[in-house]
């Protein structure tokens, strides 16, 4: 009687997707004809197997409610086609897969009865009556196979397990059959001509073109398969630059790598003109294995099988979050990037970051540094070229790290996701500085697991070229054309793509020409160098001009600080980073200038849109930041319309208005959404039209509230008690 807790309200009726027909009735009914129950197959998509009368549960499994339909497995996805009339079109529809489709590479884990983890290769003749699929985009599907024909159920279960969990060859990835069957007008969306140097050096790890200091000779290039070779990333306007490299394993007896490394450092220092700081990231940042472990613990908080479990975990949410360490890893990466930024911006020294392989955390840190220092990379186009430059051309092993092929010997790790997480932190702290929206980042993180885009399918440029060439249906001449992820029209129509732009962003106000004439320091993000012919060494070294200037100014050679061990001065670094941040913070914030993240505890947060979007109980109906942003978009739309009218009148607007002039068409989609759908905090991923307006009431409040120890006797006390409380 006493503990009549308010749990009743929590399990409210959820009217959507509910089939009130009992399974018995279904069985007695005539079986629906299977032929009609195909999803719209993509070009090159083939159905492997299917089973009808599969029950898909609504998220709260305690209700045991759901909807019947056909479950299929194709060479692209696991797809559930409901027997019921399709629900209304979603605004933010992905053209490749729908809300009941799971691309095969997006399947994370499959669980059987009693939540037993299913692993590939162990599936015998049995099949579970209930199958839970956790997706890499955090969706959770629960299917009951117990109403299907035994033969079908067995086949579909084994099919799904085989295609989702067992090792396969790259050729089996859907991209290849998709691209063979589409006439995709292939083109790389970034310009390679900027990058110089050479391919045919005999190692594939490197992009076709890359830039090294000019003192590095051609013989040096090939010495350690490219290891230890400092690759240029970005130049600060002061002339100092950021380099990254794969570290050479140091062999004790052998002195050769040491001398080679010193030579490389001298090259980076440009003959002692600049001091060089080296940072071995593996000394201070977590390993790729740590990253995977931490993320695996982290993601579990969002893969919710049922409501009760969710609310049970709610009270311990902060400490669980803390213990899994994911936010701390994000903080460490950002902190490291700030340290590098400080070296470049404040001390004007060259920085060489290194790690084994040179293509995981080096990519994270180097791209973050560039995002913080260079506003160009905060635009849509700039961000795209940053990812292409640092990650795709930079040789991040996307294929191994995402482990699409389920090979045992590959180290899977969500390194690119970690980078996106860091970007999200920057973005949520300094919203107006970014041209792209949170939704853009979320969609990008989902796209890693859609095996259609060449961007994320290969380990490096060489790998990509050789495979696409080999797979080409035509002769050797033209390689297979596959879309890159940047061609968003493959996934979304124009309206949906409008949600990728951030209504808060304004372009930098154009300066008057008179002002522009005066010298303005410019960063170098690309070099205008001869585009081909590796035989021609870059005569015009990228810091040559500016170096000459600097030589005059400085007159003195700076002492280089080589091989500083980062661990020895780490407490110092962290306090100096703090000072650097504080000094930056006291200046007025320029969204088109240097951007630093606040790293204090309360400032590093969970990427709510990505992680909470599918969890019904935490949707804020009619609320969330989108409620505000959509109003901004609305006004933006009106302003644009007025601008068009004024333009028709031939009215010229003054230049400072043009600065505030927003980019085209951000508003339309949101306005369309507002008219018919109630926005929620999960916008645009879940539309709330079908949901009940019953509030989610936390169950199990009592058990978990721990007021123990010292507070214990306080808790028993009266509010305005007698004299005993007035000690």
């Amino acid at each position: 009687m006493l503990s009549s807790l308010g749990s009743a309200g929590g399990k409210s009726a959820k009217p959507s997707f509910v089939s009130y027909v009992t399974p018995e009735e279904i069985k007695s009914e005539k079986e629906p004809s299977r032929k009609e129950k195909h999803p719209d197959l993509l070009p090159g998509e083939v159905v492997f197997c299917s089973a009808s009368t599969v029950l898909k549960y609504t998220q709260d499994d305690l209700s045991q409610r759901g909807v019947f339909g056909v479950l299929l497995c194709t060479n692209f996805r696991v797809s559930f086609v409901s027997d019921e009339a399709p629900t209304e079109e979603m605004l933010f529809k992905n053209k490749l897969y729908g809300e009941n489709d799971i691309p095969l590479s997006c399947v994370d884990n499959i669980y059987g009865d009693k939540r037993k983890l299913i692993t590939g290769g162990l599936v015998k003749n049995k099949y579970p009556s209930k199958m839970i699929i956790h997706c890499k985009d955090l969706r959770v599907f629960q299917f009951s196979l117990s109403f299907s024909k035994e033969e079908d159920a067995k086949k579909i279960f084994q099919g799904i397990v085989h295609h989702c969990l067992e090792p396969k060859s790259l050729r089996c990835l859907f991209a290849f059959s998709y691209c063979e069957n589409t006439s995709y007008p292939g083109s790389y969306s970034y310009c390679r001509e900027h990058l110089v140097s050479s391919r045919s050096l005999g190692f594939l790890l490197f992009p076709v073109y890359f830039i090294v200091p000019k003192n590095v000779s051609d013989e040096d290039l090939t010495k350690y398969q490219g290891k230890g070779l400092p690759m240029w990333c970005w130049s600060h306007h002061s002339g100092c630059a950021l380099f990254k490299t794969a570290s050479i394993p140091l062999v004790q007896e052998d002195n050769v790598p040491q001398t080679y490394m010193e030579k490389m450092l001298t090259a980076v220092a440009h003959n002692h003109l600049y001091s060089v700081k080296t940072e071995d990231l593996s000394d201070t940042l977590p390993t790729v294995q740590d990253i995977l472990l931490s993320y695996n613990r982290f993601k579990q908080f969002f893969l919710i099988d049922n409501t009760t479990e969710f609310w049970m975990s709610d009270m311990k949410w902060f400490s669980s979050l803390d213990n899994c360490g994911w936010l701390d890893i994000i903080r460490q990466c950002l902190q490291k990037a700030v340290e590098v930024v400080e070296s470049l911006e404040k001390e004007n020294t060259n920085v060489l970051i290194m790690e084994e392989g040179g293509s995981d955390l080096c990519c994270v840190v180097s791209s973050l540094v560039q995002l913080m220092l260079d506003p160009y990379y905060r635009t849509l186009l700039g961000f795209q070229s940053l990812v292409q430059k640092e990650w795709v051309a930079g040789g991040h092993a996307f294929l191994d790290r995402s482990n699409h092929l389920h090979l045992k010997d590959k180290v899977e790790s969500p390194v690119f996701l970690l980078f996106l997480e860091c970007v999200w932190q920057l973005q949520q702290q300094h919203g107006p500085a970014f041209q792209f929206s949170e939704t853009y980042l979320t969609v990008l993180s989902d796209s890693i697991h859609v095996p259609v885009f060449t961007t994320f399918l290969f380990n490096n440029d060489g790998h990509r070229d050789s495979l696409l060439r080999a797979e080409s249906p035509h002769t050797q001449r033209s390689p297979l054309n596959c879309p890159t992820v940047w061609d968003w029209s493959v996934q979304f129509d124009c309206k949906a793509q409008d949600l990728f732009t951030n209504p808060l962003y304004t372009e930098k106000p154009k300066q008057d020409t008179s002002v522009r004439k005066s010298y303005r320091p410019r960063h170098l993000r690309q070099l205008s160098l001869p585009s081909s012919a590796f035989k021609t060494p870059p005569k015009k070294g990228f810091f040559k001009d500016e170096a000459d200037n600097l030589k005059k100014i400085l007159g003195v050679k700076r002492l280089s600080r080589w091989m500083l061990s980062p661990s020895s001065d780490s407490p110092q670094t962290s306090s100096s980073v703090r000072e650097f941040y504080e000094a930056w913070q006291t200046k007025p914030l320029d969204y088109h200038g240097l951007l630093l993240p606040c790293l204090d505890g309360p400032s590093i947060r969970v990427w709510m849109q990505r992680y909470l979007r599918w969890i019904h109980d935490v949707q804020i109906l009619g609320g969330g930041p989108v409620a505000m942003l959509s109003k901004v978009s609305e006004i933006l739309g009106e302003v644009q319309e007025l601008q068009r009218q004024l333009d028709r009148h031939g009215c010229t607007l003054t230049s400072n208005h043009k600065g505030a002039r927003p980019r085209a068409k951000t508003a339309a989609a949101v306005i369309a959404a507002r008219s018919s759908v109630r926005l929620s905090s999960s916008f645009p991923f879940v539309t709330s039209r079908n949901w009940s307006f019953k509030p989610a009431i936390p169950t199990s409040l009592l058990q978990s509230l721990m007021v123990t120890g010292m507070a214990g006797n306080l808790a028993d006390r009266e509010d305005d008690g007698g004299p005993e409380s007035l000690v």
Partner: protein
Amino acid sequence: MTAPHVTLGEVLPERAVQNRLTNPGTENCSLCASRESLKMEPLAVTLLPGEERVIDKDIMYICPFSGPVKGKVFITNYRLYFKSADADPSVTLNVPLGAIGRVEKMGGASSRGENSYGLDITCKDMRNLRFALKQEGHSRRDIFDILFRYAFPLSHGLLLFAYLSQEKYEENGWSVYKPMEEFRRQGLPTDKWRITFINDNYELCDTYPTILVVPFKATEEDLRKVSTFRSRGRIPVLSWIHRENQAVICRCSQPLVGMSGKRNKDDERYLEVIREANGTAKLTIYDARPSVNAVANKATGGGYEGDDTYQNAELVFLDIHNIHVMRESLKKLKDIVYPNVEESHWLSSLESTHWLEHIKLVLSGAIQVADKISGGNSVVVHCSDGWDRTAQLTSLAMLMLDSHYRTLRGFQVLLEKEWISFGHKFASRIGHGDKNHADQDRSPIFVQFIDCVWQMTKQFPTAFEFNERLLMTILDHLFSCRFGTFLYNCESARDTNEVRSKTVSLWSLVNSDSTSYLNPFYTPESSRVLYPVASMRHLELWVTYYIRWNPRIRQQQQSPVEQRYMELLALRDEYLKKLEELQLTDSSPNSSHLSNSSASNAASPTQHINHLHTPF
């Protein structure tokens, strides 16, 4: 004093300020004095009408962020003001004396070490201040004594500043809440609910307001009988009624069941009458306490409604802890955010304060109340005395159910009604002007409530007409003692002390400058019930309040979203104007039609343009 009408933080010309600071009494030699004082630090604060300088002293402020800062401290009968002498950037402190909870001497005359001799001040608004003085000549004695006297005037037979203030405002905040008007707005009285003046002289219950709404069927005699069975005579009375389904929120204190399990037929019948008023099948009684506490209360004569005695009622415990737990929780929170934000394991530390957990429990309790009401069921809410947790629950539920309370004026009415008139013990909980810092009656219950409101405004950024600044202002003046609004424990005490005639209302300040408290994103949706998500996933620490003294936390006057929105609104207006001008010259019928339509729907947001130019 005939000083111009000014508000805190407003910057006046230095000269005028210094006149007043250096020469509070004598007017005639002000010129020479001000010349002298011009050599001192320039001051950028003006005194309030009625505020008088008491003492000033050269002192060292031990700033926890930038180290010791030399400067001068001024103490008036309202505030402590410190200005650094030569620090860059300059350091200023502007602390209403009401915010001071505790003043202690630090170190003795013989203490060694730099800056070890001085004053240690604990504030109620999440900060501590340390000042160091020279050791020679008992230099701190006078300043300590004065600070102690003026920070705790009630302990020294002095008046609170609210009674000394001469501030004048265009708006009279005391007219914001008129109980009859508010009940009429709710559609009361009805054929089931009547308004009674039985408490006109505070005879039925001395901590209730004079005007109460009770079931039509209950006679005055019934009310008197019920009052004997409810702790401190706080009988169930109506707080809010749902216009369509007539479900009501009633509030009261615990029944006096006691160890023997006493029954009271009148109380049982009274609750039955409440249930019958809208034909609710079962009346839900929300007991805000954890069930163990409710049981424990039997020992002191209290208790809860047993379901064997209250036939058609169901009892739900909401597990919200008492004032002592909340006080300790906020204390722990202060420990991890002031002066520095805990660095390692921030989230675990945050969790160990349980502050957000308590917020969650309060919010989810209120959600349950609101949900029941929306479903057409009447509820009764109580805790032990019905002035702490009960006020939190009823007012939050009302905020969810009734969009009127989400407006600037409506929110003031809500506070006046559920908190001030129904006897939340502000004086005891805050300890206005009282030196007894360890008083066990103190507790941040109202701060916790405002935090809950803030959480709701965070989750629904377009649903509230007021902004974060209003919430901060309310909390600042909860402590400041500049306004009469939050003084005393109940209406009867306020009457005795003539608060309404002798002090100024906080709402006078707010409503005379209402534009700076408005949320530009506000979109009225009158019939909408707001259910916040009471999950730790969405609750966040109110950094801009609790950690606002930390310079590392960027205090943005305006959020970037708001700023952008304002810019766009201004741009739109400018374009509209331009377009109008153009149309006057070339009156093409087509385009004039277009702009007319957009001009008309632009009307309402245009008003917000003003905010852009309002100084913050």
